[in-house]
Structures are given as C-alpha cells and as structure tokens.
C-alpha cells in the first residue's frame, strides 16, 4: 500500500510542481561574506535549499501555498540560526539572512539518543557534535579515529601503534566494565555498524585492525557522540559505553556540484636511531662491553630499516538535488598509504551513493549505500619475528652470525612474512519518513552492514630450503581466516506532538529495535609448501581447518514522553525494555529507565545578566546495558578431532543460566553557556556512573573439568568525571579571525564490589581489586637497595604497605597499587587563525596524563635479554634495577609514566582567490590548497627512558587487550605530513 502510494506521488510530482512561488535570497555573515552551504528551510514543510558558491538560495513552493504566512530559518554551523516570517506572495519573495558567528548552537538538530531529530536545547544530556567536513579540510585525517582524536571532551582515542592498517581503541568517559568491552557502539546513518577494534589477523600482540577505520573521513558530514548511560538509554543493551553516530554526506538542493581532491603525503619515523635503543654485550673473550645501534648501522650501510612511506588519497564526489525531489551524493575514492616499513601498506577503494527523495509532503525516503575494499599488509607480523623485537632485543654478540646482530632474524627476513587483512564491506541503510498528520510522524531505519574478510599470516617457503630464521615455519606456513560478519538493524519510531495549552507541549514517542549480529568464520592452516611459489593452504603438506558461527540478537521497545513549557523548559522521561539471546534462560528481559530535564534559562523573562547571553541548564539520569558474551550463559562443549579420526567433544564453557546484562546507571548535570555576545561558549558536564551487575569472569575451578571462566553478575564499579569544552571566537574581522577551542576531561573509577572475589587478575602485575581503579598495577615497590660488585642487590627495601612511607625487606613486602594503564586526564587546545580572506592556520595540541605503561621492550632488555648498558654495568648498575633483577620483576623494570603533550595536528589552508579561480575556466568554483601535519612533535613526555633505555612513544599500546598496560614490539605512531588540493566545480 505504501509503495503504491509512493509511486503515485512520484509519478504525479511533476504535475504538482508546474506553478510555483519562488523564494530566493542570500545568506552572509556580519562582514558580508557569503556563507556557502547554509541551510535555508521553510519550517514545518519539506521545502528548503542550500546556498550555492555565492551564498544564494532559491526555493520553489507550489502555488497552492499562496498567501500563507510561513517562517523561514537559515542555519550554518558556527553561526546563530536566524528566522524570518514571510508571506508567500507570487511570483517571488526575497528574503536575505545575515548570520552572526556564535559558539553556542542550542537550536542545532541532533539525531542521536532521541527517537527523532531534536533540537539540542530540548535534550537533558550532553550531545557532542563534530563537523567532520571542516575537520577533514583542515587536518586530513586518514581514518575515523584520527578524525575524532582530541576533538570531543571525554572521548579518548588510544591509537596504539603506527602499523598502517591497524587501529586504536576509543574510550568514552574512561572505563567502566570489569570484563566486557569498554568501546562505544557505533551507528552510521541510523543503523548499527561493526566497529570491532580487534579484527584482522592474529599478529604479534593480537588482532589490532579496527573495523571503524574501514570508513573514509571524506564521506562523513558529521559525527554525534553521546557519552554514557544517561544519554544512551534508548539504545539499550550494549550502549552503556556511549554511542557514536556517523552521519554521511547527503545531497543538497541545487545544481550538481563536483569536488575533486588529491592528497599526497608521507608517514615517517623521526629519529629512530635515538628512539630505539643501542644494544650492549660484554664480550666473553675480551671482557669489554661492546655496543651496536642497529638502526644507525643499517642506515650507515645504506639499508635503512625505516623509510618514509607515501600516502596518496584521490577522491571525487558529486552532490546536488531537486527542490522537493531527489537529492544525491555520490563519491569515489582511492587511498594508498605506506607505512614506515616498506612492506606495510593499506589500499582502500571506496564508493558511496546517498539518495534522498521526498515522495510527497508526507512521505520521504532515503537510502545510503557505501562500499569499501580495505586491503592491508601489516607491518608487525607474526609473534616472535616482528622488526621491533628484532631490534630492541638484538645483541652485538650475534653480529658474527647470520642474524647480523638482530635478535633472531634480519629485517629482510622479517619482511618476507606476509600478514594480510582484507575486507569487502557493504553498508546500506534505508530510511522511511512519514508524517501522516501535522502532529504525528514516524520513521523506519533499516539496513545491513556486511563485511567479508580474509586475513592470513604467511611464512613463504625459504627459497634455499633453510630453516635458519623461522624454524619449521621456514618450510612454509599459512594461517588463513575467512570471516563473514553481518549486522542487521530494524529500528522503528513514532512521534506524536500535541500542544496541550499554548505554553505546554508534549511529544510522545514509541519505538522498537531489532538487531542481529552474526559472524561466520572459516579457518584453514597449511604447513610445509613444496616450493616458494606455492602460497595456498591447499598446496601444503599438512592442512587443517575449522569453522565457527556466532550469532546474537537483541529486541527492544521503548516509550518516551517529553514535556516542554514555553519551549524553554523540557522534561523527558522514558524506558526501554530489552531481551537478548545472550541472556541466561532464567532471565527474561531488562528494563532501562531514563529521566532528564533541560532549561533554557536565558529566555526566561527574569533573565537580566548581560554577561551571560545564553544559559542552558541540564540534568539527566539514565540506564543502559552491556551485553555478555554470546555463549556465556549456556553450558557448552566444542566438537573436535579425536583419536583414529573420530569425532569428539571437549568442555569449553560452564555456562550461567542466570546471566543478565551489565547495567550502567548514570547521572549527569551540566550547563551550556554563551558569554560575550555568545562568542564564548562553555559546555560543562559532571557525571556520576555506577556499573551494577558488573560481569565478572570468575575463574572456574579447573578441577570441575571445565576450563576457563564462568561469566557472572557480581560486581559494581563506580565512576565519576567532568568534562569542559570552551570555544572562543576571539577576533572576528573581515580579513582576520581567531578561534580557540579547549577541551578537558577527567575521569575516575573505583571497584566497589567484586562479589567476594577480592581481586581478579587482569594480566601480569595488573588486578581488578576492590577499593581501587579498574586494572590497576600492583607490584612490590622497591624504595631503596644496595648493590654488590657482581651487581646483586643486597638490601632491597620495598614499600611496607599501601599509603605507608615505611619500608620492609622486599621479600616480605606486599604488592601495592602503582597506577592505571589508561589516561585519567585528557585535554586538547586548538587554534584557528584566519590570516586573510584566503589563508587559515590550524593547530591542535593533545594532552593525556595518568596513564602508565609496562614496556616489555625495555623490561625484557634489562632483565631477560640482558642487552641494556645498565644491567651490564654489574657493580655500577642502578640499585633499584638490581633489586628488580634479583626478584625477576622484569616487567617492572620497564614500568613508566606515559603522560604526554603532542602537537597532534597542524595545517595551513589557502583558498585560491576567486579571480584566479574564475580565470581557470572549466567551471571551477573554488580551489583550496592545504599543507598539514600530524604527530609532528612531542612537546612534553612524562618519562622518556627508564634505566637508560628509551621509550619510543608514550602512545604505544597493544590494542588487542581491553585493559592490559603491557606493551612490547609495537611500531610507534608515525608522524605524517600532507599536501592536498581540493577543487570544486
């Protein structure tokens, strides 16, 4: 029925548009500059347009509307929206808008965390928005995580490494879960997408490819982030770590505009010869200490280990649309990025087609289709033979051998190992909008995200048949995984608006959501190839395979009621009820309530504080959940091969029929304020969060016969924090402006209850322990020691107890708390200077503190490989290091403060003057040249070395682990530079 109606409207639409009233005008800023791409709309109708390259717009309204009085609104990001009431008088109406710059956007429309598009002013929780188009223009991020880093208070991107093709972790308001993921979930154009940060082949340190980074920033228009349970209730189970919504670029009314973009740049590794260590050895024949700086030596020999890898991005897009009809956005792109190892690269082929069609005044549909092929060869391949490990644990002792001083394989040999991550990914969403009456609207979002991955690690057969470097693997070995992942979303909501009185309005929303996720994984392994050219599993002498299927489904319904008083005081209450296939059979469903309020105080008649132009107070309480592992509730055995070719089963999961979701409860309060004619905007939020029914992986007594853990709802984790964002339009003149932005966030957490377990080991020297933050470092803290002539510590004294200044012999000392692996404080400061009408300069500094790291590169060198200068000094070695050596606390000899301040982004943007552009002909509307850099400088580093051994980069992290602060053999984040040309037609 709907389709037939839509078809009729579609076919009839040309007839309806024959006679029209034309509304036109110009949108400028206070200085008279055209605001290109401003949205101008006729409120409460489907009519609207975007301004063209001259700031002009034209809207056609059917003649049937003649004589009506309508309200028009012009909006542009960074400017206060402006409304005007006009009467539709044929044949034309002219209405110009002059917008004032503002840092406060109370009327900005957001779509995340609400059933339908809602003005920010009505929402009781913090919603962060990021103008991705501007960010891409000024900083050239190559992936989504780079786009987000340092931009939103409380959103911490932990990059981890410079291994091109891999990604980092995202933490929103710190960490809150003992055992489950702390990653936010991600939606794209209203549907759930796979944002797994631990995809790809199982390289050293585990899987580290981020599915979020399959997307190209070039296709993103805006990103919205809601940060915790107070805001994410309507997303239900899985949403307690926050929700990121990616909104891709859409068509705009007007003739087609074309954009061509070419970027060239590079990845490089500054000063590797000092950031990577010199290795030492005491020659057993001469008794002399010998040293070898492998990086320097290889460079001197003309075979540098690290090179500058080229980055290339080519993109083309077209967007346009017809008034009241089809709007479209189409893009094509190719990205090719090479890392600092010449065999580490990523090639990304991408296309996107977004279309929106307003079928009638009441019906609208949009469809968004994106395809990407992301093909990477990773730089840090198999465990034991990665390049960093070969360098940091090498030794002059092995200079006479074929390893040439490296640990066990030369860079050339390591470079033969292929670690590939490939994906073909389709993301499609369909949105149906329907406004059957003036007071009722409904929408349906549905779509799929399908990814077909192929990951493998290949040791080609050594051409000479030698097994020198890789042992049996030198004869050829391939581990192959093919994975098909699909996420299916069906999300329906209906909203009804009523004006109960002139002042009191209500909006009632109901909705339902169904989400299905499944992963079908086929693995194969082949060992021993007959020839170097044979690289398929089928060509191996020995093969085995495996298959897995993982499926999860969620179904939820919600209802929400919003009351608004005079359009300045808002009260919202709602509830979502969820059931999930991962819940235990004894647990039926979960209920997540929410309550929030917002008050636009400065619009009250009594408001007379001139210093504060705008003020909105907000408060929100909400609950959302976190889903347990899909198999955790059921007692399960896994089929496996048995003796004589028989089929057998082995116990794998003890199950828990009472299992329910982890429950995040949060209260946040805050305000948004505009000062100095709204040129200074402050957003402040304080939140208190509790994770109840926290899921704990309780170790199953192995003597029960079942291995591993039982997943139980035992714990409670409390957290709190604050976020501050200050945006300042410091100077705004015709040829010069200066904008500043400062963000700050601090988060804390404490484990309140572990259900009687007391502590849970998270990793080496890390524990979840009641009364302490999540995943704290616990170890004996050496305070003082003496060392004898052989380098043996003789009087090692350690901290006697937590909070005590006393000491006891280390042999009697308890393990005490020594910090956490994640940053507790983050801040960013950016400046945008417009030096003339054509030149802008942008710089962003990124600060993190509170995080500590256990560097296996360093600790392993001191105490295990014993190739550091300090450990070889014997009698002269640092006494604390000697004490750690004696206690074999090797990881702790690499423990350090990993706080830093980096110059994260810097760019110069030059818009070629109009007269030159016009002279180019070919219909060119605008040309922009950009020079930019990323990670150019570390301005401050809390600790650069430990016992004489350098730390390559404080941002290194093994992202395959949720909480571990242990880091080894990770390529440090690279420095990048770009030159870009952007041409509009």
């Amino acid at each position, binding site marked *: *029925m*709907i389709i037939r*109606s839509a078809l009729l409207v579609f076919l009839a639409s040309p007839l309806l548009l024959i006679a029209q009233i034309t509304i036109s005008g110009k949108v400028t800023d206070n200085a008279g500059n055209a605001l290109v791409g401003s949205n101008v709309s006729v409120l409460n109708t489907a009519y609207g347009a975007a301004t063209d390259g001259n700031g002009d717009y034209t809207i056609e309204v059917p003649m049937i509307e003649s004589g009506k009085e309508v309200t028009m609104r012009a909006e542009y990001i960074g400017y206060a929206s402006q409304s005007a009431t006009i009467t539709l008088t044929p044949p034309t109406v002219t209405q110009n808008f002059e917008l004032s710059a503002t840092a406060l956007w109370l009327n900005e429309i957001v779509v995340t965390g609400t059933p339908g598009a809602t003005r920010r002013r009505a929402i009781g929780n913090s919603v962060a928005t990021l103008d991705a188009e501007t960010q891409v223009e000024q900083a050239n991020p190559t992936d989504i995580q780079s786009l987000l880093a340092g931009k939103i208070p409380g959103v911490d991107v932990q990059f981890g490494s410079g291994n091109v093709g891999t990604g980092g972790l995202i933490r929103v308001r710190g960490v809150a879960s003992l055992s489950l993921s702390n990653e936010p979930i991600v939606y794209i154009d209203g549907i759930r997408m796979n944002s797994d940060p631990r995809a790809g082949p199982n390289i050293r340190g585990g899987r580290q490819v981020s599915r979020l980074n399959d997307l190209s920033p070039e296709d993103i228009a805006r990103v919205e982030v809601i940060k915790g349970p107070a805001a994410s209730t309507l997303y239900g189970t899985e949403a307690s770590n926050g929700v990121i919504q990616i909104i891709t670029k859409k068509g705009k009314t007007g003739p087609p505009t074309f954009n061509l973009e070419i970027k060239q740049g590079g990845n490089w590794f500054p000063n590797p010869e000092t950031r990577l260590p010199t290795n030492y050895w005491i020659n057993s024949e001469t008794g002399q200490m010998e040293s070898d700086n492998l990086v320097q030596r290889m460079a001197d020999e003309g075979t540098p280990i690290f090179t500058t890898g080229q980055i290339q991005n080519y993109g083309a897009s077209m967007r346009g649309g017809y008034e009241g009809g089809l709007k479209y956005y189409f893009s094509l792109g190719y990205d090719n990025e090479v890392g600092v190892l010449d065999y580490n690269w990523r090639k990304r082929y991408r296309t996107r087609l977004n279309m929106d069609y307003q079928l009638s005044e*009441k019906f609208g549909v949009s469809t968004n289709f994106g395809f990407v092929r992301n093909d990477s060869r990773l730089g840090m391949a198999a465990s*034991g033979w990665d390049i960093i490990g070969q360098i940091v644990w090498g*030794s002059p*002792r*092995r200079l006479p*051998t074929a390893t040439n001083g490296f640990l066990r394989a030369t860079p050339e040999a390591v470079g033969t190992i292929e670690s590939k991550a490939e994906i073909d990914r389709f993301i499609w969403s369909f949105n149906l909008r*329907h406004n*059957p009456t003036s007071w009722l609207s*409904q929408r349906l979002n549905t779509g799929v995200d399908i990814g077909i991955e192929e990951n493998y690690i290949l040791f080609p057969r050594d051409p000479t048949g030698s*097994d*020198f470097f890789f042992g*049996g*693997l030198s004869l050829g070995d391939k581990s192959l995984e093919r994975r098909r992942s699909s996420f299916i979303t069906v999300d329906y909501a*209906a909203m009804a608006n009523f004006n109960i009185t002139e002042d009191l309005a209500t909006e009632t929303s109901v909705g*339902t959501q*169904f989400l299905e996720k499944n992963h079908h994984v086929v693995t194969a*392994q082949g060992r021993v190839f007959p020839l170097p050219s044979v690289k398929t599993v089928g060509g191996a002498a*020995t093969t085995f395979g495996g*298959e897995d*299927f993982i*499926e999860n*489904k*969620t*179904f939820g319904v919600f209802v929400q009621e919003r009351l608004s008083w005079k359009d300045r005081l808002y009260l919202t209450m709602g509830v979502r009820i969820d059931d*999930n*296939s991962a819940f235990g059979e004894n647990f039926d469903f979960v209920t997540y309530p929410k309550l929030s309020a917002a008050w636009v105080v400065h619009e009250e008649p009594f408001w007379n504080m001139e210093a504060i132009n705008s003020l909105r107070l907000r408060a929100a309480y909400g609950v959302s959940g976190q889903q347990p592992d899909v*198999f955790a509730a*059921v007692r*399960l*055995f*896994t089929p*496996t*091969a048995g*003796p004589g*070719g*028989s*089929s*057998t*089963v*082995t116990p794998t999961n003890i*199950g828990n029929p009472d299992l329910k979701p982890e429950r995040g409860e949060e209260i946040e309060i805050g305000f948004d304020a505009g000062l100095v004619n709204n040129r200074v905007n402050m957003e402040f939020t304080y939140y208190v969060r509790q994770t109840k029914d926290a899921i704990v992986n*309780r*170790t*199953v*007594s*192995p*003597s*029960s*016969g*079942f*291995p*591993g853990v039982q997943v139980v709802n035992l714990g409670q984790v409390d957290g709190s924090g604050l976020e501050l964002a200050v945006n300042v339009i410091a100077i705004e003149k015709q040829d010069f402006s200066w904008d500043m932005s400062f963000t700050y966030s601090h988060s804390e957490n404490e484990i309140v209850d572990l259900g009687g*377990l007391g502590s849970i*080991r998270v990793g080496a020297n890390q524990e979840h322990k009641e009364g302490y933050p999540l995943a704290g470092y616990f170890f004996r803290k050496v305070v003082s020691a003496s060392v004898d002539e052989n380098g043996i510590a003789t009087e090692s004294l350690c901290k006697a107890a937590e909070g005590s200044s006393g000491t006891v012999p280390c042999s009697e000392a308890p393990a005490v708390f020594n910090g956490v692996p994640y940053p507790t404080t983050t801040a960013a400061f950016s400046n945008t200077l417009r030096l003339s009408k054509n030149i802008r300069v942008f710089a962003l500094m990124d600060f993190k503190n509170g995080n500590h790291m256990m560097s296996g590169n360093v600790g392993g060198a001191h105490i*295990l490989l*014993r190739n550091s200068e300090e450990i070889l000094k014997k009698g002269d070695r640092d006494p604390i290091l000697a004490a750690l050596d004696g206690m*074999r606390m090797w990881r702790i000899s690499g423990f350090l403060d990993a706080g830093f301040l980096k110059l994260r982004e810097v760019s110069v943007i030059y818009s070629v003057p109009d007269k030159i552009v016009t002279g180019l002909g070919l219909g060119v509307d605008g040309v922009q040249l950009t020079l930019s850099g990323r990670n150019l400088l570390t301005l401050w580093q809390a600790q650069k070395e430990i016992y004489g051994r350098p730390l390559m980069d404080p941002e290194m992290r093994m992202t395959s682990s949720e909480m571990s602060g242990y880091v080894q053999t990770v390529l440090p984040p690279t420095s990048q530079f770009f030159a870009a040309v952007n041409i509009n037609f």
Partner: protein
Amino acid sequence: MNKTSCASTFLLGFTLTIFLTGCDNLLDVERPTRVEADALNDPKLAETLVNSAIADFECAYTNYIAATALLTDELMVSTEFLNVNNWDLRTIYPDNSNLGTAGCTTFGFGIWPTLQTARWQAEEAYAIIESFTTTEVPEQTNLLATAAAYEGYALTLIGEGFCEATVNVGPLMQPSDILKMAEERFTKAIDLAGTAGNNDILNMAYVGRARVRLDLGNTSGAAADAGKIPEGFVKNATYSTASERRENRIYDYNHRRIMVSVDPRFRELEVQGTPDPRVPVTDAGRLGHDGVTDLWFQELYPEAGSPIPLATWDEAQLIIAEAEGGQAAVAAINLLREKEGLPLFESSDSQEITNQIIEERRRELWLQSHRLNDMLRFGLPFDTGVNHKDQIRGTTTCLPLPDAERKSNPNIGGS
C-alpha cells in the same frame, strides 16, 4: 480510515505484534559449532564420550611431557618467551597463569586444567554410560573399562606431578591420595576389561596400576602387575595432524618452533661406546629461537603425528627391576638392552644396580612423562644457580597447586 492512517497503524501494529507474540522465536539463535551439555546424555553417543575422554587425555599428556621435560633435565629452553622459559628456569609458582588456566593448544603449558579436564571427561563418560542399559549400549563394559583406564592415567599424572591436588572442586588432597584414586580406577578398568576381553585396555591398566603401586611403595603389587604384561606390548597415545589439538607438542616446540632444545645431558648418549638408540638426537648446527642456545632436535618424535608411548612392556620391565632389585633387576635391564642391541649390564652392587635402574629409566623412558616423578622419587638434584643465559633459576620441583584452583575452590579456601 484513509490509506495513510492505515499504513501507520499497520507499521505500529506489526512491530508490537512481533514483540508481544513472537519475541521468543525472534531471539532464537543457532550454535552449530557448539554442543549443549544435555545433548550428550544419549546412549548413541557413548563411544563419542569415551573417545572425547581419550582425546582430552592425549592432548594433556603431550603437554605434560613437554613442560616437565623442561622443568627436569630432558630438554632445555631455546627461547626467551616466558611461557616456555619459566619451566626451564624452574619458576613455576602458584600464580603462573599458564599452569592454572591455559588450554591444550595455548602457547605455554596448561598442565592443571588439561589434566583435570581429561580426568573429568573420563569420569563423566563413565557415569553417563553406566546409567544406560546394555541394550542401549551393547559395548558398555568395554567402554567403561576404557574410560576408567584413562581416568586412572590422568589421576596418575596429577598425583605424580603436583605437590598437592584436588578433584571435582573438593578438598585438598595429597599426591598419595590421588594415586590411590588412580589405583582404584585401574583396578576397575582391569576388572571390566577382563570381562570384556579387551587385552589392550587390560594391559594398559596393569601397567598403570603397577606404576602407581610403585609410587605408593607397594613394590610387590607393582611387580605382580608388571609381570602380567606380554613382551612387546605398547599402548600409545596417538597424535596426528588432523587438528592442532591432535599434534605432538614435543615435536611442535622442538622441531617446528625451535623453542626447546635437547638438554646436553641427553645428547649423543652411549652405552660403553655404543650409541644409545633410545635417546635419538641430532645437532641442528645452529641456534634456537633465542639466538643463543645450540639447537638440538630430539628424534623420538620426528613428526607432528608421532605417537607417544603411554604403557609399555619396557616400562613394566623397569618396574620389575626397581621393585625386585638385585639380579632380577639386572636381568630386566638386560632384556631391554638386548632388544636394542646394547652391551649388557653386569653388577652385584645394590647401589650400583639402583643407580643403573635410574639411568635406564632416564634413557628408556625419555620424554614419556616419567622423569619428573623419578627425580622427585629418587631425590635427584634439580638445576640451580644461573642458566647458560645468566638468568637466575627458581625453586620449583613438584608442581604447585595453581592459584586458579586455590582461589576458586571454596573447599580449599577459595570463593
């Protein structure tokens, strides 16, 4: 109602209908790669249950041998990877997560959980099969005998290797308690295998019972059981390349990963100038994974599918030698030497004979799960001081009950 209202109502009604009436079905999921526990309670799966117990035992067995070979003097480490290195350094303490939680194919050695899983699988298989009738399971006696024998061997390794232990989340037990349980299981297996006429399981159980009786000091009982074993009897734990779980772990760590090498005390052994074929090794002529240690290959298990002896006539002869001593021991030793074409042993000195029994066991049963038990039983010294890489050795002898058990078992103070 007009068309638009009709459509709205339909959409809303459709979704509510799904929720109210079909929610349970909507959330049904498939688990085709897992088996729910209830599905195993089926007489048709009796043989599968026993094979499952054998598979878990064989995986645990090769893990146990590889790990304890490093802890003792059979193999030496040639990697810096801690999961392996700690065993050679004798730094296996209760908090060692591999010891307490690692799986059968996990890198490192999950000795405690894999042996416990093997034990429980056999026990559970026995209990389930016993609950069926012989009509439902015609091979019931045979299958019960097999399950009991493998449970006996899992208990044997737990009792021999660990300083203290427990089963089924029970109270703390001493090794002798565990070994007595093993003896009881072997006795059950002997009875059932005799009834079923399964000589393979019968002899395996006799060797197993002789072994634990020797451990428990019941030398006459041990000798009596060992004497029943026919010459040439070999019961192997089988391995293959069908899956990673089925592979011989000693081959894997030595030949493939080059992370372990043959300890110098087992290289190029001779008997009075004659190369000893019972300890086959080759010099790889290069360094191992750590770039420091000379790499030697053991050739007892030259392939990933090489079987490992579990119960043999050879072992039975050495049990007789130890149990009876004197010239009976000399005769038993020489029976084995004759088989290998080695010079014969002669002595009338009891201490010398005892020492030779230890030496013969060291060679004859190399990489067959006996060395740790022998070093503990005979009080042989473990390596101390620093290793060849200047790393300080620890103090592990018998394996400690891991924290993973102690902290999770309410009957021994855990929660």
